[in-house]
């Protein structure tokens, strides 16, 4: 009985230690990417612009359709729910305040983050995992091509650039979707809706959302890369680590978001 408990405690301890080790790995990886961005050109081994551009297309442009679709839907959902709740107090005119704030500060970054984690984070983990088991990563190393510079840096740069842009786009589309429903339901004109929005949403709120989404981009990349790099053995390992990377990065995003919300509403 106690034996089993000790065993379980030990396993828990070990997985906690492994978790911390992964955290450390993320920090090291981030530092290495920074190093290559700064020192790469001086060593005649710059981070390739071409590859970075390609990643940007893949992370950003290709994600626009799905993000647009989801954002319109969620914008309308927020408006419907907002009007329904506020009607209890006869305050449905205030729906713009609720929708505006929550979209720009929370829903835009969160939905974009989750979609990017599902699309790009998973494909990053799968790509790196596959490259590991096919010895492509080893091949890079022995060719004197640093894998962090060659693969991770372009991916990270692309995420840091594109996720905030996608978030901005997502927020605008959500607000449009919400505005469309509000004008239908409450008969508010487009002009009045926009006027009201610019009144309640400050630049600070927008920056809060965009700053947060940059962090999400970094988290998704690091989680994807680390899980991909931990793949060992066979193709089955790739599938397992890909799933793990999506679950972990979505968890990381939501927890970070909660911490941000807490801190930001304090100050």
């Amino acid at each position, binding site marked *: 009985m106690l034996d089993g408990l000790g065993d379980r405690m030990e396993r828990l301890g070990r997985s906690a230690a492994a978790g911390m080790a992964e955290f450390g790995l993320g920090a090291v990886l981030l530092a290495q990417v920074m190093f290559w961005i700064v020192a790469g050109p001086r*060593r005649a*081994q710059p981070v390739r612009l071409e590859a970075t551009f390609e990643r940007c297309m893949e992370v950003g442009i290709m994600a626009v359709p799905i993000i647009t679709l989801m954002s319109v839907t969620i914008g309308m959902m927020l408006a419907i729910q907002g009007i329904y709740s506020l009607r209890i107090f006869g305050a449905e005119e205030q729906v713009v305040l609720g929708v505006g704030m929550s979209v720009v500060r929370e829903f835009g970054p969160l939905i974009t983050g989750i979609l990017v984690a599902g699309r790009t984070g998973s494909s990053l983990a799968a790509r790196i995992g596959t490259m590991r088991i*096919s010895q*492509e990563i080893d*091949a890079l*190393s*022995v*060719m*004197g*091509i640093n894998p962090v510079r060659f693969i991770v840096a372009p991916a990270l740069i692309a995420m840091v650039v594109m996720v905030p842009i996608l978030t901005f786009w997502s927020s605008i589309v959500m607000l449009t979707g919400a505005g469309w429903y509000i004008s239908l339901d409450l008969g508010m004109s487009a002009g009045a809706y926009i006027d009201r929005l610019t009144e309640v949403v400050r630049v600070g709120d927008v920056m809060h959302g965009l700053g947060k989404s940059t962090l999400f981009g970094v988290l998704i990349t690091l989680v994807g890369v680390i899980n991909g790099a931990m793949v060992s053995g066979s193709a089955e390992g790739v599938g397992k680590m890909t799933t793990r990377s999506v679950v972990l990065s979505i968890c990381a995003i939501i927890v970070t978001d909660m911490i941000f919300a807490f801190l930001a509403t304090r100050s």
Partner: protein
Amino acid sequence: MTHAAAETSSRYRPSAADLATASPMIEIRDLVTHYGKREILHGINIEVRQGEIMVIMGGSGSGKSTLLNALLGLLRPTSGSIRILGQDLNAITDIERTKLRQKMGVAFQGGALFSSLNVLENIMLPLKEHTRLDRNTMRIMARMKMQVVSLAGFENLMPAELSGGMIKRAALARAIVMDPRILFCDEPSAGLDPVVSSAIDDLILTLREAMDMSIVVVTHELESAFKIADRICVLDKGHILTIGTVDEVRHSPNEHIQNLLNRRAEPEILDPDEYLRWLTAVNQ
């Protein structure tokens, strides 16, 4: 076998005396490596000289890949030293190691071609990363290597569209595109039909002749080993059984080696008590 011997004799082969005076390209001293707590290689000593083809042989699990990984700097040894072109692989700076690696070419067992690049781009990649040549020059150089491995005309295929033999040849082309001083090949002819396999052996001999490379080949295939090797190193359970010329190895009195050469399974000698304990053990 006699046929193969007649064929090889027509090729250039440095004499033992020549090799003995040639400068050492790889020096492995007392190499010990671990995976976790398990010791895999137990004190390996090998020297490979300029222009020499060294074949590493051994049964499955004997540590061939482990040795190769250590030589490539992918696995840090626990103790001992590996000097390549006079530089200690594990004591030099990153920058020096990158420079050194440009003088080494590696053809991995599975090819390890980048699946997102076509054949030509794969072969051009080391040039693109390490030289300042313009694109056309790089393309011409890569095409010349493709010619060497008889892959001309397949530039635009993706790795997924290649056959097993073509993948190995493309990997070889990529390994030699920087004109390395040392070439490493992991199982270059495993799983290929005899004709293609023999063509790859010829290719390795041609590379040595044309560029005076030192070549380290890991292989299972006896015939291929006898055809290309200047010296053969036989590994067993992380120890070196012997290093010697093809004839020395072929006529070695060592029982393990003869078993390996005659494809005889090693008789398993087991202590009855230990066997019983293993059989009835609960864990694992």
